[in-house]
């Protein structure tokens, strides 16, 4: 221990002595370690503990998937769940939940809350207990006994002022009276973003539904049963179900997911891994930089190392001494890196809009915790070893008897050292290019997402959602009348140019739209399980003009398309091209659902522009528009085109809707541009982070190439002196240095470009607007890197040509 203490003391002394190089190394490592620590915190939250309960490793989600349509996680039907529950032996508990927005009315201002209808054993399955009261009783899953509710801590605190006597009180929910039986502990909001839970009950009809999938199923593994064993059993059950009911299960495959895999969607996981890879690259570049500095520094100490060796220091001891210094360097970088990471985590967390953050599993747990600290320590030590091992190893081979002579130069400039330093620079250039191209593509993709919505002129559009209670608005005429009155009042408001409604506003709610199968009249039935699907939008006639969605044929919907007139539909161009190619779809008929569905045939009266609904989709999805007067929805979004800032109209809009139904809460009241940015905030984060990482990589790589070229000039001083004495001009010397540096740059880029192309293919497959052959990414950015590298080579070259040949000749 004493000798390690000596190594540390001496290491600190050396770092302090060489302040400038120490600062450069610490800064490089701080950037590399800092982004890794910050990204680890994000990845830990998303991938390791995205749920607010402890025993998630024994809980699995049982989901359907439909690989042929790219659906990897889907809910299941009630009867599927009930059969699983009855037949599976791998689990000691199985439960289910359904998304359920509720309107809280009566005692206070009407408010919409995010609730979940859950099976009574749900909390027990998760192993969580209420802060107050109880959870649900087994019998409360029966219709009639389900008039109870459990509140989240947040809702209890916000709406009910943390009333300690809340238990047993009755509240009005969607027109029904429910008794509050429990309050959950602070921070528990699963399934995210739960504010309340009500019992999940099935009526007799629901218990027979097999092809309507809306239930999410979780199950707790029995002791000694592995996920693999449970998966095998569940697949057997699923195969039996598919054989018995092929219509309902054709194309669907059961998947058993661990909770972290279930809670964090695959795109989030992919982008998290992308960023983890990117920060790893940045750290490698930083390590290569530091390794190059260490090479130079250790070379300057070859005599000291030879003396130590002569005094009896073994090779391992010399390596330990040098590694101690390089680990000290990286630990100093880690301290600064942790401060940077704290700042970055703060930036990441604080810039996420709360209305988006509440939906992201694990977001609340993003922080630099003890695990992040340990991770930082581990990568700091690893970085120290990685950046120090090669210089230490090679310099421990110094020819000591030669070095110890009065004029001995040792073996500090062996070709292996040159080669390794060149390899490090080449690797830096290659990694930096990959990061730059990745960043460039993501920024282009992000810009494409912004541009695609400019046609909506979203800055002057206000959007808000409402959900009509089923009990109160059970009948279609009631809903139609409500909407007609509301739209009329809204359109008459000052500053409002027009008002409309749509069931799905593009990019709202994270872009989730839901799709339905549809059937075209006269077409042979599609192969079982292969029915075409579409987004079904129910809109008001003004919607197309309000959103600048162009009419491409036929007519728009009109107020005269009502209950008493033939049902009509407008289709998107995508539907026309995909399903009516070579013919005119106008006048043709289609219906929502399969051929035997109990829904009306709709006559196609118009064709409109395609609309991009979600950033995840590479292409616009087929859309069929219906009139709200013919199919009034319960849940809808109101959209208003205003004269200026849409938020100035909010209170007037609330009053206007309140005049029609004072108990109806409006929620997610947001300008449309905010809806769009909220929807793409995830990709904005990724693009911003990649841009920052790309720039850091560019700077670090240029520091690396500058360091190597600068060192090379120092090493070749004598040679340069000889060349100048022999008549070499300044240009000759400059060319000599530049050629060497640019050769390394070109080799690095030649290696990096194919790898960047691989990244481009991967990104283009998951992100709208990303093209593989992007000139910005593959021409402009490599040129930028080459230009920066040229400057980094030019500065040492300029120093070389300014040398006095006589001094250079005397240089040893």
């Amino acid at each position: 221990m004493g000798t390690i203490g000596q190594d540390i003391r001496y290491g600190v002394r050396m770092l302090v002595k060489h302040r400038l190089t120490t600062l450069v190394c610490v800064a490089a490592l701080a950037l590399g370690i800092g982004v890794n620590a910050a990204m680890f915190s994000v990845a830990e939250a998303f991938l390791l503990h995205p749920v607010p309960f402890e025993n998630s490793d024994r809980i699995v989600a049982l989901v359907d998937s439909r690989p042929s349509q790219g659906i990897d996680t889907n809910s299941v039907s009630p009867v599927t769940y009930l059969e699983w529950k009855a037949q599976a032996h791998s689990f000691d508990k199985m439960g289910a939940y359904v998304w359920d927005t509720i309107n809280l009315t009566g005692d206070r201002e009407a408010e919409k809350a995010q609730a979940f209808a859950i099976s009574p054993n749900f909390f027990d399955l998760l192993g969580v207990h209420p802060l107050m009261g109880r959870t649900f009783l087994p019998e409360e899953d029966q219709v009639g006994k389900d008039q109870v509710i459990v509140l989240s801590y947040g809702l209890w605190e916000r709406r009910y002022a943390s009333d300690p006597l809340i238990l047993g009180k009755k509240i009005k929910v969607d027109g029904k009276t429910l008794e509050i039986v429990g309050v959950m502990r602070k921070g528990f909001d699963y399934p995210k973003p739960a504010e309340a839970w009500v019992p999940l009950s099935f009526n007799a009809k629901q218990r027979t539904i097999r092809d309507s999938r809306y239930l999410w199923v979780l199950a707790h593994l029995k002791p000694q049963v592995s996920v693999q064993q449970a998966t095998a059993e569940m697949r057997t059950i699923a195969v039996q179900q598919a054989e018995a009911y092929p219509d309902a299960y054709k194309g669907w495959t059961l998947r058993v997911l661990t909770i972290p895999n279930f809670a964090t969607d695959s795109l989030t996981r992919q982008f998290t891994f992308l960023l983890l890879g990117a920060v790893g690259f940045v750290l490698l570049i930083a390590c290569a930089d530091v390794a190059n500095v260490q090479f130079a520094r250790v070379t300057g100490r070859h005599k000291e190392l030879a003396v130590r060796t002569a005094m009896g220091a073994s090779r391992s001891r010399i390596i330990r001494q040098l590694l101690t210094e390089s680990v000290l360097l990286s630990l100093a970088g880690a301290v600064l890196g942790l401060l940077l990471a704290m700042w970055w985590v703060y930036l990441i967390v604080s810039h996420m809009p709360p209305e988006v953050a509440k939906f992201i599993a694990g977001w609340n747990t993003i922080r630099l915790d003890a695990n992040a600290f340990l991770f930082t320590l581990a990568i700091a030590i690893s970085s120290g070893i990685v950046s120090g091992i090669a210089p230490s190893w090679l310099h421990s081979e110094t020819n000591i008897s030669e070095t110890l002579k009065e004029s001995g130069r040792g073996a500090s400039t062996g070709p292996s050292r040159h080669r390794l330093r060149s390899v490090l620079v080449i690797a830096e250039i290659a990694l930096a290019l990959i990061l730059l191209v990745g960043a460039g593509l993501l920024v282009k993709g992000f810009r494409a997402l912004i541009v695609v919505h400019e046609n909506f002129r979203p800055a002057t559009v206000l959007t808000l959602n409402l959900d009509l209670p089923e009990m109160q608005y059970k009948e279609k005429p009631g809903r139609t009348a409500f909407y007609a009155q509301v739209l009329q009042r809204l359109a008459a408001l000052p500053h409002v140019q027009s008002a409309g409604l749509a069931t799905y506003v593009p990019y709202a709610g994270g872009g989730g739209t839901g799709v339905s199968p549809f059937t075209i009249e006269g077409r042979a039935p599609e192969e079982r399980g292969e029915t075409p699907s579409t987004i079904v939008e129910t809109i008001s006639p003004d919607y197309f003009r309000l959103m600048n969605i162009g009419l491409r044929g036929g007519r728009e919907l009109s107020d005269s398309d009502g209950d008493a007139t033939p049902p009509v539909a407008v289709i998107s161009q995508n539907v026309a091209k995909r399903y009516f190619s070579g013919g005119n779809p106008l006048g043709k008929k289609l219906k929502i659902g399969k051929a035997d569905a109990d829904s009306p045939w709709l006559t196609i009266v118009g064709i409109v522009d395609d609309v991009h609904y979600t950033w995840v989709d590479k292409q616009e999805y087929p859309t069929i528009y219906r009139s709200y007067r013919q199919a009034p929805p319960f849940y809808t979004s109101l959209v208003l085109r205003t004269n200026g800032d849409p938020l100035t109209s909010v209170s007037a809009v609330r009053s206007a809707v309140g005049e029609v139904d004072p108990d109806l809460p409006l929620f997610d009241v947001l300008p449309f541009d905010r809806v769009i940015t909220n929807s793409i905030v995830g990709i904005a984060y990724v693009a911003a982070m990649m841009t920052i990482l790309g720039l850091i990589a560019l700077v670090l790589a240029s520091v690396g190439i500058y360091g190597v070229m600068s060192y090379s000039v120092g090493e070749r001083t004598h040679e340069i002196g000889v060349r100048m004495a022999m008549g070499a001009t300044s240009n000759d010397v400059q060319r000599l240095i530049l050629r060497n540096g640019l050769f390394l740059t070109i080799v690095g880029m030649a290696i990096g470009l194919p790898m960047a192309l691989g990244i481009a293919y991967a990104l283009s497959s998951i992100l709208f607007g990303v093209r593989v052959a992007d000139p910005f990414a593959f021409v402009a950015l490599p040129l930028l890197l080459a230009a920066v590298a040229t400057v980094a080579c030019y500065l040492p070259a300029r120093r070389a040509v300014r040398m006095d040949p006589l001094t250079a000749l005397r240089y040893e």
Partner: protein
Amino acid sequence: MSDTATLIKMEGVKKVFLTDEVETHALEEIHLEIKKGQYISIAGPSGCGKSTLLSILGLLDSPSDGTYMLNGQPVGKLTISERTRIRNREIGFIFQAFNLIGDLTVYENVELPLTYRGTSSAERKQKVQNALERVGMAHRLRHYPSQLSGGQQQRVAVARALVGDPLILMADEPTGNLDSKNGEAVMELLRDLHRNGATVCMVTHDQRYANFAERTIHLFDGRIVEETKEAGVSV
């Protein structure tokens, strides 16, 4: 082992350097015996191979051929780590350029061989103090080499060579970087050490200092061409 026991015995030692496919024969057929307590000098013109011979004697380098016995043990073909261990425990070095580490204090420089030996801190402290007192530098413990004169630096280097109680002191042109006054002082110091029982092997090209030794080995073109004893008696 008696005082006259053989400490070093070389038979037919050769050293060939291979650089860029050129063979350079630095040493040829060296036969040499040094007894414990002897003070010998190796003399010769520049490039004759005396430093190479000292490097091999000091286990800083290994012979290309021949046998080398140190304290009765063959050491010519040892591994690097074995050579390192013996060098640390049995050989003390004094260099022309002092080769003190500039970033270590006098105390830390002298302590260095003991550090690599794993000596305890208390024992190190005592030995360093003793060694520095022997060379008259105990009052400069906290100084850095740059704060000392050349003569003082070489005294510290001698203390470093002594501190581990080595079997033999190897001095490579120990006065080469000193003025005559300081050079004399260092030579007197080595003579005192020899008188107190130390075995000393010194490389020098200066005949005045070679005469401090009991025996002088004369090298020319890598071969021993003459050996003289005290008062210039050729053997």
